[in-house]
């Protein structure tokens, strides 16, 4: 019988214990409440009011669902949502595939394991803004690395960042570069849990490498893949730093994800009520995904987020 709780005797012990416990929990709880929970409550309340800081004479009247209706009618909102959806889907596909490949490669590496792991972890640890800047630099035109390498190829655009479609390429590449290693490490853990003897048995039965992958690796890795997928989706959904620094949402608003649109509404247009409503929408959508994942996998997956 292994106990985890300590409940020794002592004068008035039960009460003293409970008091001590609350004292230990209080700082964490208080900070979380004040700087996490209450702000969300405020955001919700604010989203029900009209509050435009550029027009202070209008005061702060209660408008109920007014802001939400305005947002739903706003084409820029739907574009932002579309951009976000595209970004989530594209990065998911790229990162899971590349991550799986990398994980399988890492699984087989025996030499200089530590060095390889370090090299692979670096992108994950680099600040997102730095990633954005480096990749921006490489794709800057004229004269940047990407343009030079693409040469006169007819596929290469004149200027990457001025083209609403081409601008996505450096964005996706940069996110893939930063995040794939992290996904790979998660999947590697899952891979290493697969019993080697299953592969050996399959080889003896004459299965090809592809067959072994499809019938052993993939199904047994599914839980890890799902964890990685759900939790990457959540982060991709909230993307901000990368786009803000690399394209600013541009050209125009061609690459603007929902978080950036919210930021613009709040801090550029100073429309707090509207911004709050947008914030709530982002919050609810993120929360739904998060809740579904917790149901399936337990809360632990959430905390190992990228730095």
């Amino acid at each position: 019988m292994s106990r985890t709780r300590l409940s020794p005797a002592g004068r008035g012990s039960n009460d003293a214990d409970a008091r001590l416990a609350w004292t230990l929990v209080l700082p964490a709880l208080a900070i979380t409440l004040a700087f996490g929970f209450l702000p969300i409550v405020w955001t919700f309340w604010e989203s029900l009011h009209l509050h435009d800081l550029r027009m202070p004479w209008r005061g702060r009247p209660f408008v109920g669902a007014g802001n939400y209706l305005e947002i739903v009618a706003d084409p820029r909102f739907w574009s932002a949502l579309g951009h976000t959806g595209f970004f989530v889907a594209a990065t998911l596909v790229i990162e899971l595939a590349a991550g799986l490949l990398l994980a399988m490669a890492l699984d087989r590496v025996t030499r200089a394991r530590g060095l390889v792991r370090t090299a692979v972890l670096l992108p994950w640890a680099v600040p997102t803004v730095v990633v954005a800047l480096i990749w921006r630099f490489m794709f800057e035109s004229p004269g940047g690395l990407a343009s030079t390498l693409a040469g006169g190829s007819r596929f290469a655009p004149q200027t990457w960042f001025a083209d609403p479609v081409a601008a996505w390429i450096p964005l996706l590449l940069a996110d893939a570069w930063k995040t794939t290693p992290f996904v790979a490490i998660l999947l590697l853990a899952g891979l290493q849990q697969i019993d080697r003897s299953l592969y050996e048995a399959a080889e003896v039965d004459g299965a090809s490498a592809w067959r072994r992958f499809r019938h052993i690796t993939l199904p047994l890795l599914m839980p890890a893949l799902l964890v990685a997928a759900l939790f990457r989706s959540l982060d991709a959904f909230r993307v901000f730093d990368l786009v803000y620094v690399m394209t600013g949402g541009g050209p125009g608003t061609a690459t603007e994800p929902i978080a950036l649109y919210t930021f613009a509404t709040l801090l550029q247009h100073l429309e707090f009520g509207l911004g709050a409503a947008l914030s709530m929408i982002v919050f609810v959508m993120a929360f739904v995904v998060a809740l579904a994942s917790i149901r399936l996998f337990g809360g632990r997956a959430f905390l190992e987020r990228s730095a």
Partner: protein
Amino acid sequence: MAAISLEAVSKVYPNGHAAVRDVTLGIDDGELLVLVGPSGSGKSTVLRLIAGLETASGGRITIGGGDVTDVAPQERDLAMVFQTYALYPHKSVRENLAFALEVRRMPAAQIEERVRAAATGLGIESLLDRKPAQLSGGQRQRVALGRAIVREPKAFLLDEPLSNLDPLLRAGTRAELALLHRRLGATMVYVTHDQEEAMTLATRMAVMNGGIIEQVAAPLEIFARPATTFVAQFVGTPSMNLWPATWSCAGAAQQMEAASFSLDAAKAAGASAAQDGSRLVIGLRPHDIDVTPIGGGDVDGTVELVEALGAWTTMHVRVGTDRELIRVAALAGPAARPGERVGLRFRRDRLQLFDAATQRNLLTS
């Protein structure tokens, strides 16, 4: 060294489970009291209540005459040896032994002296600078003991200290513990589920079942006069045979009638207390049944199973249509073979009589 007493102590967990119910027990200064019983009987809980690692739901606990019911374990001055030894893995053996003394701010020289003495006494001086992970199971157990000895506490509490050792080591260590007890003259409360261990070590034994103490007495007393049917079949290997029977008195004769046989049981202990027509449970230990050629005993039966253990042999014999086999133990010698028909002779004076309703021995009720 101190005496320990529990008065009507109980422990009920928040989920309603009553691990210990109304236990009253006195442990004399210097005795080795063994709490023995099956899993879930509450014996470990009683030990933890004495230690102060659990809070009693009711009752009083005193140590050396002082009420400690509300006193924290830190203040009770008891030393405990845990089943898993609970050695501090990041500390060396020396630091493990010295920890409690450092907590009490004993001067370093004195600590060193005590640690050395305890280590030498247990034969672990050469291990003082190792870490627990580098020790074998037996060595760890000694360190756990050393940690307790070094403190010179009011009493020692031992929670199944031998159960993690392999059988060969167990017997040897058991003997050493007995010698240790004699040498230190310490009050020891010892928990085990192994009744053989209990019998050999205890000055007195407390047999527990379902949160209550069924009997407290010296081992041989418990063996000879078990107070309840539970104690009767728990203590002693192979366990006592128990038969439901009806008692009838006809003049001077007193008979017990079990399902497949009847005996005149006038010589049984407690026969005088038995009433005509009462329902009883009759007990007889396997060692008190002799094997005779067929027709030469009190009943005849067929041997179904023979277990030869070397020093003695156990035979399981079917009598009549009884579901239960009768266990017979005989000193090694030519044993009967499975399938053989034999006679069984019961030693009347060793019969134990228990009331079927209360399951209590007629002698002690």
